[in-house]
């Protein structure tokens, strides 16, 4: 451009010429935007400092060491009313992670089942699965949580009228109770045998797979595996004189003593998150399976593979490449949606920390900052892990 001859009268002034230069304009535009962002940030932060100073709120994370003084009805880490806000944070975080792990596991099972069911050759099963998806994904999650919590679980009878589901299982308005396993002397040996059995079976099946690849012969190892995982620990269990006691829940007038209690908040939250997210996963699974060319299943049929094996060995592995990226974002959605716990007072991170702790201390900026950082880290690390996993799963270049 610059060597295009221009007549004297066409040449604009220096500043105007600079403004038309693409690179100069790019720098100016960026400076302008950055300037606005910095200015907004500066105004905001100075307002925050001014407001905090006026309200006499000390900023900083010192409050984490102060005494929390409130109780929590489900704790996975040591906590009591004398613990600090910092410990309350851990209680909330572990409770969030518990819901996320349970939810991801269950919703994967249900979602895959419904997604495959929608493609079933059985007309009724396909229609039922379609109805499931279309109903559940079009109703707000919060409404579903409320339904399970207030409509179903809070409508259960009081402890004295507990419903007994078989020996040692009680259901009432305060939750679900089941026997607690109490290990006695020798239980460690049984558990160790179980672990060793699982490891040995994994090693064996790997060896069998290698054998299959090398020689083409199938080694049946499932019987050996069954013996290692179930038989050996069971035999040890009886040899050592059944070193496991059961602490049965006993219903009394106002409460249930003994056993393990699952609070209704957890049940409602996991149920709603699982069934809701499964409706999305089902659609993802269906799209993934449909993306596998029809020739693949026809070829498998031509080889004489039965339907179940075709699905497991041919279709699903290829569909997984399409399924995994959106599946990951559903897992993340589930984790983020678990924050709706606050609406039914399940003690998750948002409820315990951004709710109770925030109300007691008033440290809005620090607490919300910390809470959001936790979710951001969860999101970014999961996204990073899945990107890595995805690049491993991707078809190696065909070129």
């Amino acid at each position: 451009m610059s060597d295009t001859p221009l007549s004297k009268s066409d040449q604009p002034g220096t500043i105007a010429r600079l403004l038309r230069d693409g690179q100069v304009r790019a720098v100016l535009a960026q400076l302008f935007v950055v300037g606005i962002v910095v200015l907004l940030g500066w105004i905001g932060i100075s307002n925050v400092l001014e407001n905090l100073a006026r309200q006499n709120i000390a900023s900083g994370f010192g409050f984490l060491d102060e005494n929390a003084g409130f109780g929590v009805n489900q704790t996975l880490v040591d906590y009591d009313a004398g613990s600090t806000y910092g410990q309350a944070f851990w209680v909330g975080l572990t409770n969030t992670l518990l819901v996320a792990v349970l939810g991801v596991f269950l919703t994967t099972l249900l979602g895959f089942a419904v997604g495959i069911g929608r493609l079933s050759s059985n007309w009724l099963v396909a229609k039922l699965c379609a109805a499931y998806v279309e109903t559940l994904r079009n109703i707000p999650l919060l409404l579903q949580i409320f339904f399970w919590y207030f409509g179903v679980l809070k409508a259960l009878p009081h402890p004295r009228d507990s419903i007994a589901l078989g020996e040692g299982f009680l259901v009432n308005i305060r939750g679900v109770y089941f026997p607690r396993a109490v290990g006695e002397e020798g239980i460690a040996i049984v558990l160790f045998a179980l672990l060793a059995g699982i490891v040995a079976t994994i090693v064996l099946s790997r060896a069998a797979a290698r054998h299959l690849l090398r020689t083409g012969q199938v080694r049946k190892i499932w019987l050996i595996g069954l013996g290692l995982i179930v038989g050996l620990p069971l035999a040890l269990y009886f040899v050592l004189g059944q070193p496991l006691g059961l602490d049965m829940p006993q219903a009394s007038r106002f409460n249930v003593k003994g056993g393990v209690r699952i609070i209704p908040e957890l049940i409602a939250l996991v149920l709603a998150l699982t069934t809701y997210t499964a409706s999305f996963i089902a659609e993802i699974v269906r799209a993934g399976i449909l993306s596998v060319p029809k020739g693949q299943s026809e070829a498998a049929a031509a080889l004489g593979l039965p339907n179940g094996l075709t699905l497991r060995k041919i279709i699903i592995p290829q569909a997984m490449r399409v399924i995994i990226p959106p599946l990951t974002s559903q897992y993340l959605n589930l984790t983020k949606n678990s924050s709706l716990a606050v609406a039914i007072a399940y003690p998750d991170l948002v409820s315990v920390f951004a709710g109770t702790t925030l109300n007691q201390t008033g440290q809005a900026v620090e607490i919300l900052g910390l809470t959001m950082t936790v979710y951001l880290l969860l999101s970014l690390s999961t996204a990073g892990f899945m990107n890595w996993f995805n690049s491993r799963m991707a078809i190696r270049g065909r070129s």
Partner: protein
Amino acid sequence: MMLNWMRANLFSSWGNSLLTLISLWLVWVIGSGIVEWALIDAIFTGDNREACLVPGAGACWPYVGAKWNQFIYGRYPLESQWRVDLIFAMGAGALIPSMIEGMRGRRWFVLFLLLPFPVITYVLLTGGMFGLAEISSDLWGGLVVTLIVAVTGIVASLPLGILLALGRQSDLPLIKAICVVFIEFWRGVPLITVLFMASVMLPLFLPDGVVIDKLLRCLIGVALFSSAYMAEVVRGGLQALPKGQTEGAQALGLSYWQSMRLIILPQALRLVIPGIVNTFIGLFKDTTLVLIIGLFDLLGIIQLTFTDAGWSTPQTHNTGYVVAAFIFWIFCFAMSRYSQRMEKRLDVTGER
């Protein structure tokens, strides 16, 4: 005919027959349960809870009749509810023609919805002008608030999302970085923390003496949150366009903004209409979260009516939830069907 069809589709093998029987049993249990609860055992008339306290009673429909006005309008004064009706009528009247492809003057309806309609809605709802009585937003509630939050979210997030998507695709490193950080931040945190931020933290960021209405604060939070999701949808459309489009625009001597406005965006946005509608469905369902920070949307109002001792029965909760679920379901299902139809249409035009 019928028998052949059944043999092929329901009883082709032992396993299939078993599945069919289990499914039939499921259909029977769920179907008969719903019919019994909603029709056979349900109570249809009554003036208060007494009517629904019959042992073994199903749905308590008179409760819905008594509270219906609140479900829709919240605590909006009765004598001013015509204003809300007028807004509903105008909105529906402009929305329906603007959704039909090939409708004459379609763009004018869309333009009306995007520009004057929000202003008219604001004036009519708040009042205090043109002789209309002023009505504080504390009194708004029910479906009105649900629709306000959802529609504001979508209308505000669309332009913001487009700008963010363009920024993320930009060659300018600083602008790109700012947009990436902005988008990933909002997409990484749950909406409920955003709403908490809007309700307790946003006031701290404002100078002393400036007070923003709670509903407005919540709207700002929702708009920023959904703009990040919208940006990713739009980015999908931008990436789907062949590079030749940009290069062609450049070859014609169009500037960046001209090529975006005239060449790129019209094509990209058309491609992502289904994605936009899906984002809107998500946002519409997410509006229920505002009840956690103390606003009364449809679900919030229904929760509130449960505290009315005059209608407290064992079935009030479930009746209320079923009504709310049905209303939300109708809206979301209609939208998802629309988006599916658009998807099919776009597919067809793409292959030609």
